[in-house]
């Protein structure tokens, strides 16, 4: 008798989602040291180069915040996008096209919606942890801990979910792995540069400022700074925007992956 006889199979089953995530966890155990090392070292290097270097020569503070703390809180957003969008793009592409991993998973009682949801949740959870590292490092550079910072992992999670969905969607669309260069140049780099992580966006031309409001990374940067220096009522709206971003990207990713994986 099959082990699962009598089990009713529904949509978005926790068992299917946790099963796919357990595969990611098993793989992660083989490479976590390198990823963790770089995620800690990178913000330290950035803070030394941008924060200490620039604040010693060009910028002392921004809106009353020491520049090293301004950059440190902003770098949560860069850590989140680089540990969600890029792994989602490359990881999904490699697992689908080169490793045939998804063929194996979809031969089990798992559907595409569960597969994509699990991949997004795994990437989102991982990126929300790594996204907090720059904040912790910045505390080492003089940022005062604040209770509001406890919400940062949640903000990072929803942003990372959205960008994981974006990355999976791109992986479903591109024909060749080289085409990720276009995605990075056209979307990832501009989003990260006009997020307000390194300079305040109110110095930008008005058109860019409007575009920046549509940038989920900018909303994350503002929320992280809210956590560090005090929230505004508008931050609720920002958070709602991030939740909506994650939801919309989830549905698009499921739709595109169904088109890609099911003949």
């Amino acid at each position, binding site marked *: 008798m099959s082990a699962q006889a009598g089990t009713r199979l529904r949509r978005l089953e926790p068992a299917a989602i946790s099963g796919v995530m*357990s595969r990611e966890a*098993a793989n992660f155990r083989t490479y976590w040291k390198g990823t963790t090392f770089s995620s800690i070292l990178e913000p330290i290097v950035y803070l030394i180069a941008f924060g200490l270097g620039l604040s010693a020569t060009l910028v002392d503070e921004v809106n009353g915040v020491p520049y090293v703390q301004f950059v440190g809180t902003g770098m949560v957003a860069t850590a989140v996008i680089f540990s969600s969008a890029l792994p989602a793009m490359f990881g999904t592409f490699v697992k689908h096209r080169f490793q045939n991993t998804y063929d*194996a998973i979809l031969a089990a009682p798992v559907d595409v919606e569960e597969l994509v949801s699990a991949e997004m949740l795994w990437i989102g959870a991982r990126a929300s942890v790594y996204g907090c590292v720059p904040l912790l490092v910045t505390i080492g550079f003089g940022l005062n801990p604040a209770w509001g910072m406890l919400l940062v992992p949640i903000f990072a999670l929803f942003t990372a979910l959205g960008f994981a969905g974006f990355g999976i969607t791109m992986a479903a669309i591109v024909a060749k792995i080289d085409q990720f260069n276009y995605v990075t140049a056209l979307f990832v780099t501009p989003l990260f540069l006009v997020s307000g992580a390194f300079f305040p966006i109110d110095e930008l031309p008005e058109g860019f400022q409007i575009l920046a409001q549509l940038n989920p990374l900018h909303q994350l940067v503002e929320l992280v700074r809210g956590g560090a220096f005090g929230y505004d009522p508008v931050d609720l709206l920002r958070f709602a925007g991030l939740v909506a971003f994650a939801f919309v990207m989830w549905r698009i990713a499921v739709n595109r992956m169904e088109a890609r994986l*099911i003949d």
Partner: protein
Amino acid sequence: MAAIELRGAVKRFGPITAVDGLDLEVPEGICLGLLGPNGAGKSTTMRLLTGQAIADSGELRVLGHELPGDAKAARAEMGVVPQLDNLDVDVTVEDNLAVYARLYRVKDVGAAVDRALDLARLRGRRREAVDKLSGGMRRRLLLARGLMHNPKLILLDEPTVGLDPQIRTELWTLIDDLRTHGTTILMSTHYIEEAERLADEVAVMDKGRVIARATPAELIAAHAGTHTAEVYGPPERLTEVRAIAEGQGLPVRPAGPAIAIVGSERAGNGAVPEDAVIRAASLEDVFVLLTGAEAE
């Protein structure tokens, strides 16, 4: 109840019709070999059965579940062994198995992993990464992974493709054990010997449909008679022998450097040269006659 029922299944990819009105019924407890040349539609049929491809038309039912709507429930009761190795190579043998035990909702994951390790004869290497295993071990692991949940039906997609003969024989023993224990098996292959050894019945597929189906012995008797004469020689001589045999209505097929006169027991005077090698008719003769493809 049949384990698999396909009625008029059609699957097109643009202008190509991969499965063309396929009717296929697999009763419970048998091993059916799906034999066909590359491009015959075997792999597409396998993907239709797992819900990874959706038929353009036709009715499909697996273990009583209608496809594609109920494909997930059907997959919960079947095991799939793919043609391509899709193990996680950096992960340990036991973790590879444990992941799939969870995906198949097995209650006691540890016990299922131990059983699978025994089946694959890899208990001593459970903590090694898959990329440290030989090709044969990896194939055994793939087979064991597909059986984690004691499925009622197992789909084997070219289970021994690319393996050396010794490892192939090992896997045949494992598959034969499953058949003996009553598991329904649908096995696609283009290896004639594999189908002959393992399958209770063979369905020959070509151009997306089944063109003949019976036990291997019945197929041979119906399409190839009892004997085949293989004739060797220079091309001019083979052309001459072929013309005489075909003149008597005997089917002739290429057989590597030779030609094979199928059903040679029916040959009249002069059709079979004295130096011809006479052997028993085989499933390979049937396959080549029906599909026009070279056998492997």
